[in-house]
């Protein structure tokens, strides 16, 4: 199947069987993100304990790229400090930025699944939507 380099098995698997989906009853911060262009929507709940993210859950209605990105993000920010999580968001945007030659840049290995988006620019926002929602949840723009 041509195009399967983007639809890495990790992306397809996480979209189908997310590990961090659902509502977080004791969330301390919440944010919603949507892409008016395609109608993808994400609701993000984060429980902050001190300066650390104790738990993160998402409810995503969208494509496989968006759903997998939300799920992998939620998994990768748990246990991180707020500034570490925001730093990861910045690096994720930078990794996929226009003309960026940056590859993983210390992001978790799983994020490499999104690198083919560099040649699928029209789908970029599907992957970055959860990270933008996270930045909003943590009060950073």
């Amino acid at each position, binding site marked *: *199947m*041509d*195009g399967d380099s983007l639809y890495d098995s990790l992306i*397809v698997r996480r979209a189908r069987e997310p590990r961090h989906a659902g509502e977080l009853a004791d969330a301390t911060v919440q944010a919603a993100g949507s892409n008016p262009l*395609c109608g993808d929507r994400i609701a993000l709940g984060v429980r902050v304990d001190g300066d650390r993210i104790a738990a993160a859950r998402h409810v995503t*209605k969208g*494509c*496989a*790229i968006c759903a997998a990105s939300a799920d992998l993000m939620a998994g990768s920010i748990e246990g991180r400090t707020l500034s570490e999580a925001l730093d990861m968001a910045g690096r994720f945007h930078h990794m996929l930025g226009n003309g960026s030659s940056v590859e993983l840049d210390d992001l978790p290995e799983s994020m490499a699944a999104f690198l083919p988006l560099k040649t699928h620019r029209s*789908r970029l926002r599907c992957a970055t939507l959860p990270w933008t929602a996270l930045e909003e949840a943590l009060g950073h723009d």
Partner: protein
Amino acid sequence: MIGDTTLDTKNVADLSHLRAQFPILSETVHGKPLVFLDSAASAQKPDAVIDAMSTMMRTQYANIHRGLHWMSERATEAYEIARSRVATLLGANAREEIVFTRNSTEAINLVAYSYGSLLKPGQAVLISEMEHHSNIVPWQLLRDRVGVELRVAPVTDDGDLDIEAFGDLLSDGKVALVAITHMSNVLGTVTPARRLADMAHAAGAKILFDGSQAVVHRRVDVRALDADFYVFTGHKLYGPSGIGALWARRELLEEMPPFMGGGDMISTVTFEHSTWAPPPAKFEAGTPAIVEAVGLGAAIDWVEGVGLDAISAHEAALTAHALRVLPEVPGLRIVGRPADRGGVVSFTMEDVHPHDIATLLDRNGIAVRAGHHCAEPLMRRLGLNATARASFGVYTTEAEITVLVETLGRIRSFFV
């Protein structure tokens, strides 16, 4: 005119002769032959259109309606011939009933602003649940500006207009204007236009048809439809972008105030007072899209050369074929089963989001549209966030639909 371009819908050689006139169709995408199934968003352009525009810019270009020189006279003539082509295409009484606009959206905004300014609080505008945003938002702006009520006629589960409810919404006589699609860009539904016009008129309302999709797929006769306003855009009719048209009954255009002020739309100007040129000039302020109008004229010539009835039959056969073979893809569901439809088919696939479908099709050279198709209220009514949509044009082949179906099957197995 291209008299040799007649279309035998079952004749593959005929279709390849026709396809050869569209240079873009020989392009490859991601190393695959382009399978262009997104004509409802914008159609590809034949040589006749490309050449007409290029020739105009190379040999016949100047501003129109104001030069006293030879070039300006030739350009004016070409521009006005294009207007006549549009009038003939729509079966208008006179070319003065055709106002050039940028597209359908601008034509609807023109009516909403200008005719809308004649409406009063207490009156209503009636639209339907399956409108494109371009036939919703201008009426919301009018509602907020003038204080008219905005009513919405529902669609049935099959994707047809609910005629009974439509009649009920007209029954109190408050509706001054019905603005409704002639063919849905999402479901392909062709609305029973003449019947709707009769119902609107019996209730004392005028009726506007958004013909952006319909005009491409079948012959439209505004007099036979008994329409009051009809709008369409050039780029879906194999013409260039940046040019569209509003047809309206002459007496309506005369009654309506200008939409925009500027050059070309005036009779006299003083600092105290200006008077307006007669229609259509009254609605064409500023230098218009001259080259694009000529391109649209060439597109209409080309379409008429092929024959709208032949195009209509070709697309009906393709659509029937697509509706037969698409459901063979596991998990695929066609959205809407309207009684009368054009060459637009929306679908969803279990376990695969429409955007993933579109991206994977694209990697295989197949262009479809995915999303809400600028019809969010309709999507909400259907309980969907998005669909994938394949739409057919004069150049679409049965073989391309076969490629679509095979690729969709592979996409599905990839996700399950």
